[in-house]
């Protein structure tokens, strides 16, 4: 019943009529972001080929473009106002709720496994030491100072192991990744096998034969603790040290406005590389402002809007694939005709763009000048009171919040106008501006420092929590996400408003050679005899 035959992560945006497709999809995505406010953590899930977006895709298309197959697809109401939900959104929400329940179960499962393994690891040496005492106490050979020394070493090594494991593994998880962390799983299996083999040996050689040499048993326990410390060293090298040396340079581009940054990463799996990229994204990229993109979209719509294609010959009505092939051929020829006509038309939109941008630039600069003057003047109205004055004249004394409220009205208008001109007014609420002003006054900042956060868009983390909270990221990748980064790996990190395209390249092998210069070899001579005619 759907019209697409194959689905892969990248073809989600390809084909069809681009302008209308994008509009409808954007409104749909905006609804999705509103419904996600209850999720309070950032999670990355992998997008294995799903079935549900196909519903939404064809429904959006159905209302805009006359399509031969529209009778065969489901028609659903797509929301045109800001506050309505469409049917596929509801489907998607329920599916996500199921997903989230699944995720929590997985997390608790992993946690319990880890706790059980940890207890096993810590109690095994103690069990080795205590069991002979419990089982055949009377036949044990007493061992004096040597054993006591070994007891102390076991105690301290266990303490060190405890602290090291706490430092490495007991950290609050910052993200939940789609696939299991391969190295950690391997290490857990290794530790389990190791401890089990020690138990096996202990059971067969010591418990069965009831060995009386207690010192040997204690030394056996010490060797176990030593080996566990070495496995912990292996864990540090595999989990922490291996990816420190930079090997790859990744280029991260935001799909909506083209902001690009480059980062150096070490040898990581794709999902961990994606996590590192996202952590850098929140600190480095300026906040995503959809209001700035509307101009290019309207221009794009205008390019094709002036042309209308009339089909003089009736499309061949035939059964089955004949109609589909005819429809496809028709769509192709239509789009080709439109492209040819658009190319031939004398387009003066570049002129409009140039003058519009120059005008906008001028307007922004004028507003900015007014804003800077207004803020500087406002800051001169208040003065920090010194200690001695505080005791003398407790008259009209204000705390920072009241002072901010007192001087805010004189700059509010200029600031509001500036934010509206640069399309940033939705990022800052009046409350946040007053809070920022009180903060600047408390810390003796100059007006320029106060204005810095409004004159240019800052990183996403700077803005209120509703901007970056409740973010669900989807990792779209052709290669398996637990495979390592390679030269030419490309993957996508999708969120509701935009996506980040990440490509990786290896840093080239550097061949360096040395050249020795003797410090006494720096010698100079005067230039050749010059001759001048007079």
């Amino acid at each position, binding site marked *: 019943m759907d019209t697409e035959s194959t689905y892969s992560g990248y073809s989600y945006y390809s084909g069809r009529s681009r302008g209308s497709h994008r509009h409808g999809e954007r409104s749909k995505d905006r609804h999705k972001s509103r419904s996600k406010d209850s999720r309070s953590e950032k999670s990355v899930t992998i997008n294995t080929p799903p079935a549900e977006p196909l519903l939404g895709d064809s429904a959006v298309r159905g209302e805009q473009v006359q399509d031969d197959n529209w009778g065969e697809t489901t028609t659903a109401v797509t929301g045109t106002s800001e506050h309505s939900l469409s049917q596929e959104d509801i489907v998607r929400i329920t599916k996500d709720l199921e997903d989230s329940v699944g995720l929590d179960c997985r997390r608790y499962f992993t946690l319990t496994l880890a706790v059980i393994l940890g207890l096993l690891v810590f109690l095994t040496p103690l069990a080795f030491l205590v069991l002979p005492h419990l089982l055949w106490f009377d036949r044990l050979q007493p061992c004096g100072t040597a054993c006591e020394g070994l007891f102390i070493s076991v105690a301290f090594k266990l303490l060190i192991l405890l602290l090291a494991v706490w430092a490495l593994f007991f950290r609050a998880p910052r993200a939940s990744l789609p696939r299991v962390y391969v190295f950690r799983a391997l290490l857990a299996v290794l530790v389990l096998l190791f401890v089990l083999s020690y138990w096996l040996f202990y059971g067969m050689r010591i418990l069965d034969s009831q060995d009386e040499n207690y010192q040997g048993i204690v030394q056996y326990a010490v060797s176990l603790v030593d080996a566990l410390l070495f496995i912990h060293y292996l864990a540090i090298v595999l989990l922490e040290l291996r990816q420190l040396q930079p090997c790859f340079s990744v280029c991260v581009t935001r799909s909506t406005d083209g902001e690009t940054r480059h980062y150096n990463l070490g040898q990581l799996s794709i999902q961990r590389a994606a996590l590192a990229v996202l952590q850098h994204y929140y600190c480095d990229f300026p906040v995503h402002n959809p209001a700035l993109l509307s101009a290019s979209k309207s221009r794009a719509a205008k390019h094709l809007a002036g042309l209308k294609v009339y089909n003089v010959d009736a499309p061949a009505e035939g059964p089955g694939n004949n109609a589909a092939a005819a429809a496809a051929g028709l769509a192709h020829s239509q789009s080709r005709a439109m492209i040819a006509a658009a190319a031939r038309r004398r387009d003066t939109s570049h002129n409009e763009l140039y003058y519009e941008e120059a005008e906008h630039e001028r307007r922004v600069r004028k507003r900015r000048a007014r804003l800077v003057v207004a803020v500087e003047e406002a800051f001169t109205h208040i003065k920090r009171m010194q200690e001695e004055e505080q005791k003398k004249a407790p008259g009209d004394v204000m705390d920072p919040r009241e002072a901010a409220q007192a001087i805010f009205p004189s700059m509010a208008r200029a600031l509001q106008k500036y934010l509206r001109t640069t399309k940033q007014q939705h990022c800052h609420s009046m409350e946040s501006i007053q809070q920022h002003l009180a903060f600047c006054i408390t810390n003796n900042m100059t007006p320029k420092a106060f204005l810095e956060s409004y004159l240019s868009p800052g990183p996403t983390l700077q803005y209120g929590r509703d901007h970056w909270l409740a973010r669900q990221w989807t990792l779209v990748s052709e290669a398996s996400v637990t495979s390592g980064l390679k030269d030419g790996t490309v993957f996508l990190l999708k969120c509701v408003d935009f996506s980040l395209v990440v490509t990786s390249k290896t840093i080239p092998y550097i061949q360096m050679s040395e050249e020795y210069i003797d410090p006494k070899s720096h010698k100079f*001579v*005067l*230039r*050749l*005899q*010059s*001759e*001048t*005619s*007079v």
Partner: protein
Amino acid sequence: MSFIPGQPVTAVVERVEIKKLFQGGNLILGFSIGGGIDQDPGQNPYSEDKSDKGIYVTRISPGGPADEAGLKMGDKIMQVNGWDMTMVTHDQARKKLTKKNESVVRLLVTRRSLEDAVKQSKGGYAQQ
């Protein structure tokens, strides 16, 4: 023409007076100089002592004012219009020779043949 460091420089000089010729918009003298305290003295083909950094005449244009006044190639210029030329840079020497408001330059030059002539006459006198 060598000098002993620390002693005053003594030389037998000839007075040469050159009238500048107006040619091609400039006042020219018709010879080329080389040398100076900022130049390499070892490259000087005319000096006896290869550490001599004085100003030497390297070329005379035939038929020019210097040629008519009797300046010879290889002469060392000791003074120009009273200005010393034994311890000057190349550019300073050029400037002293090409002053626009002077139409005549009076040089004191020395050459090997002058020394030899004086020595011969002195020696001849001593013999007598």
